[in-house]
């Protein structure tokens, strides 16, 4: 029986430490993992907890991220609660198996310290890996600070393992900017956390030898479409379970989570839409604009998948100009948020001015000053009801200004 870990009411934890404690408290049966910057400390801490007697389950230090995710999928099929952590190139190596996990409906929890993708090689934070996995059929939860990384990791198990969901879930945090930044975190006690997450409920376990099960079949044109439709349907409907778990968590901790994180949007004329730590920095910028009488707000994407279509449209319905902030090289088109926010607004008959800002690649600092400048451009557009700037701009870039359309 695992030892109880004594925690303070307030801990000063970086995002990785926070996540590793959430994994410890979730009483995972099998963690299969491979180290990669900046998520490495998560698995290091986890193995230290194991070495010190705080964990009952098993830790398999495998030889690649591909094997890490494969091990989690197989252990999950065998009836284990499983989780792992990764970043960047490791995430890329996992991608094949991410699709297997969701298609086989194994509720693996993957904690991601988001990082740029090579080439050129870069160990710092951006959302390239998150964007690479966004169509993999996983639930995607996004944290902006260490407290949220901890909270969302605990909630991820409860959401993913719900019998109406049974889909894998990722918890994202910005590499270094969150994963290596220590801030105040209020943890749950081990007992509270375990009670909240609950006992693991195996479904179609391979080890139930009286009822042999075949996992990972082949389906061809006669069946593949129906299975993918079922999977998509269940992912779309997982919204209800996510909301329920957010509510239960609020009852327990008084910390509130929503599918989208709205900041001063009720009366906003202009808004920044972002993911990750930038959501919080943007609130500071919004407040500075509000000091000048400009009605600025921030929409943070808390749940990237399933995509919170109605919530986004509701929150932005009266906004005149929107900045969609993509921290990933767009690779020949607009950033993902631009496309998806535009689609959501147009699909609901709205036509605000929407601009796309590519920022912060490879950990490039994103300053309050830059965010203020984005609001000023939005304000300019909103006042004149005219799009006065290119649709896509790169910000914080050395050299001549880069923009398109």
């Amino acid at each position, binding site marked *: 029986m695992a030892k109880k870990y004594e925690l303070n009411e307030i801990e000063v934890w970086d995002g990785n430490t926070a996540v590793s404690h959430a994994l410890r408290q979730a009483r995972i049966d099998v963690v299969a993992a491979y180290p990669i910057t900046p998520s490495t400390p998560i698995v290091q801490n986890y193995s230290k907890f194991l070495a010190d007697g705080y964990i009952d389950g098993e830790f398999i230090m495998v030889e690649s991220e591909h094997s890490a995710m494969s091990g989690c999928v197989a252990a999950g099929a065998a009836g284990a609660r499983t989780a792992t952590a990764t970043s960047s190139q490791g995430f890329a190596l996992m991608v094949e198996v991410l699709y297997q996990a969701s298609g*086989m409906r194994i509720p693996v929890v993957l904690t991601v310290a988001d990082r740029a993708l090579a080439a050129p090689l870069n160990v710092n934070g951006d959302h390239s890996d998150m964007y690479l996995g966004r169509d993999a059929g996983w639930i995607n939860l996004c944290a902006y600070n260490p407290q949220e990384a901890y909270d969302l990791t605990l909630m991820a198990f409860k959401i993913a393992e719900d019998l109406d969901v049974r889909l894998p879930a990722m918890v994202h945090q910005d590499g270094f900017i969150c994963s290596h930044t220590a801030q105040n975190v209020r943890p749950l006690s081990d007992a509270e956390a375990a009670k909240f997450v609950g006992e693991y409920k195996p479904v179609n376990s391979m080890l139930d030898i009286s009822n042999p099960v075949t*996992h990972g079949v082949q389906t061809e044109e006669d069946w593949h479409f129906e299975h993918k*439709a079922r999977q998509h349907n269940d992912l779309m409907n997982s919204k209800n379970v996510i909301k329920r778990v957010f509510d239960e968590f609020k009852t327990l901790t008084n910390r509130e989570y929503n599918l989208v994180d709205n900041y001063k949007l009720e009366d906003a004329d202009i808004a920044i839409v972002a993911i990750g730590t930038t959501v919080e920095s943007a609130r500071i910028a919004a407040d500075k604009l509000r000091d000048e009488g400009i009605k600025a707000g921030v929409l943070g994407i808390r749940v990237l998948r399933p995509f919170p279509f109605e919530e986004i449209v509701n929150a932005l319905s009266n906004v005149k100009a929107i900045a969609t902030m993509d921290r990933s090289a767009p690779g020949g088109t607009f950033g993902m948020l631009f496309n998806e926010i535009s689609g959501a607004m147009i699909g609901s008959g709205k036509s605000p001015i929407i601009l796309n800002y590519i920022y912060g690649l490879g950990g490039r600092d994103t300053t309050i000053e830059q965010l203020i400048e984005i609001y000023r451009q939005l304000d300019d557009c909103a006042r004149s009801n005219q799009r006065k700037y290119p649709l896509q701009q790169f910000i914080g870039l050395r050299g001549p200004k880069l923009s398109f359309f």
Partner: protein
Amino acid sequence: MAKDIKDLGWNELIPGAALFSFSEPVEDVTEVAIDERPYSPTNSHEYSVGDWRVEKPVFNRDYCIDCQFCWVFCPDISIISRDKKMIGVDYEHCKGCGICVEVCPTNPKSLLMFPEHLENEEALAKWPAKEAKK
């Protein structure tokens, strides 16, 4: 399963496309003979590949010594053997590869390939005599 599988809509599928071998629990499958198992409709045992054959093996009890070579080398679990005795060929699962005939050591062979359309009685009537040692 009440409905035939092929009539199921996307909303009726088992998430993850898991398939089950049996329709009720079988505590120790090695204790339960093939004829007595509660196969699920999704077990390939419930299907037939008999139409793959061009020729079929016909079994002649008269010459069989129950050596079980045909049983062990059959790739398709189509040699029916019970209590160490060879009983016959499962034509639902036999693909007509002919291995059983090749490995049969008796003289004449107790399994021989015949055209698919020929009745087994006719085949047995045509059984060749013992071959002289070469």
